[in-house]
């Protein structure tokens, strides 16, 4: 804080007392702080203990262009010196507060990028004499947001006795670890691990497998992804 000492005309600057300040061990080492139009004025001086009860409560009256203070107040220190404090001095005037509470609910959200996946096993490219035929799809992805710890994502199908085999694999997860390819059943199987307190995405790779001996037909699966405690 940079102070400059200079005479101040409290009258023309319409000074108003803010408060008496700095009192140490019975002596006022500071004095009085006044508001003026363009800043603050600090009136200082050492005040004898006997004068401590002579606090200025309404000290400034303007009359005939003279500064009049409460009687018996010593004019010796009153006019001893005036300090003009620059306007950028941060003098606190008052404060107030209130409480702001932020609560975050447990949020778990999952979203599959597309609702329908079709896997057609046509036998194209089949080698004569080979029984197994396959088709794959990696056109969809799974997105999640979880703000709980120790979570994993499992996957299951609603189809109890599928004719053909359907496998699933998480590919390139942005967070977490892919559990490895699993054959879908009605029992939930791990799909992604370590996805607690994260948001991310991965591609879903489906692989359908049919044997020539299984003939033709179709399976309709409803795939469910679930967040569970790991």
């Amino acid at each position, binding site marked *: 804080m940079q102070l400059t000492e200079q005479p101040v005309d409290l009258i023309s600057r319409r000074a108003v007392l803010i408060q008496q300040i700095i009192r140490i061990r019975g002596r006022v080492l500071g004095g009085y702080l006044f508001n003026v139009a363009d800043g603050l004025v600090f009136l200082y001086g050492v005040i004898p203990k006997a004068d401590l009860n002579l606090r200025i409560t309404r000290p400034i009256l303007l009359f*005939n262009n003279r500064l009049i203070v409460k009687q018996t107040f010593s004019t010796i220190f009153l006019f001893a010196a005036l300090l003009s404090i620059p306007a950028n001095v941060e003098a606190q005037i*008052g404060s107030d507060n209130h409480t702001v509470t932020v609560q975050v609910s447990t949020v778990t959200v999952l979203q599959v990028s597309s609702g329908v996946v079709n896997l057609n096993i046509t036998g194209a490219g089949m080698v004569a004499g080979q029984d197994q035929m396959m088709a794959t799809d990696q056109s969809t992805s799974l997105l999640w947001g979880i*703000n709980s710890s120790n979570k994993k994502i499992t996957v299951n199908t609603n189809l109890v006795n599928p004719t053909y085999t359907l496998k699933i694999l998480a590919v390139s997860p942005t967070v977490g670890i892919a559990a490895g390819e699993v054959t879908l059943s009605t029992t939930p199987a791990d799909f992604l691990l370590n996805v607690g307190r994260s948001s991310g995405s991965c591609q879903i790779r489906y692989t359908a497998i049919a044997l020539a001996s299984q003939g033709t037909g179709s399976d309709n699966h409803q795939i469910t992804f679930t967040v569970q405690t790991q």
Partner: protein
Amino acid sequence: MGNMQGNMQKALMLAILSVVLCAFQTELYAQPPVKVKGGNVAMTISTGLPGGELVSVVNTLTTLDYRRENYLTKITVSTSCPGQDFTLKVVATNVSAGTAAPEVTLTHGMLAADFITNIPQRPPNTGSCTLQYTASATFAQGSSAEVGNDVHTVTYTILAQ
């Protein structure tokens, strides 16, 4: 005789001035320098976007009234929130006197930051603004069930600028 009459006139004028000054100061200082109105604030984040983040919530239910002085003033804001986990920001809107500072991120232990600056001297004697709080969190920051709520004591201070 004339001198005595002059002294009486001076005394009378002093008395009148005293009354006027006292009345003025009583009226002016009846209002607190700064006052939060609307009570405490509670904000709950309850939705999120898969692959994205939790959705922020905004609260504008509280206001700040402040007294204008006979010199330039400003208002600062600070917070105390031990163990803070989530993000809380505040900005003054609908400011009737002064200039709103950019949005302030409230962080435990922060230095007081400008909230409204350049509040001109009176008259009029008062000013006000809306307190716009924005709470946000990430999935990685967890939930209140695991880490507890953030309880901020937000303090507004008016001071000479």
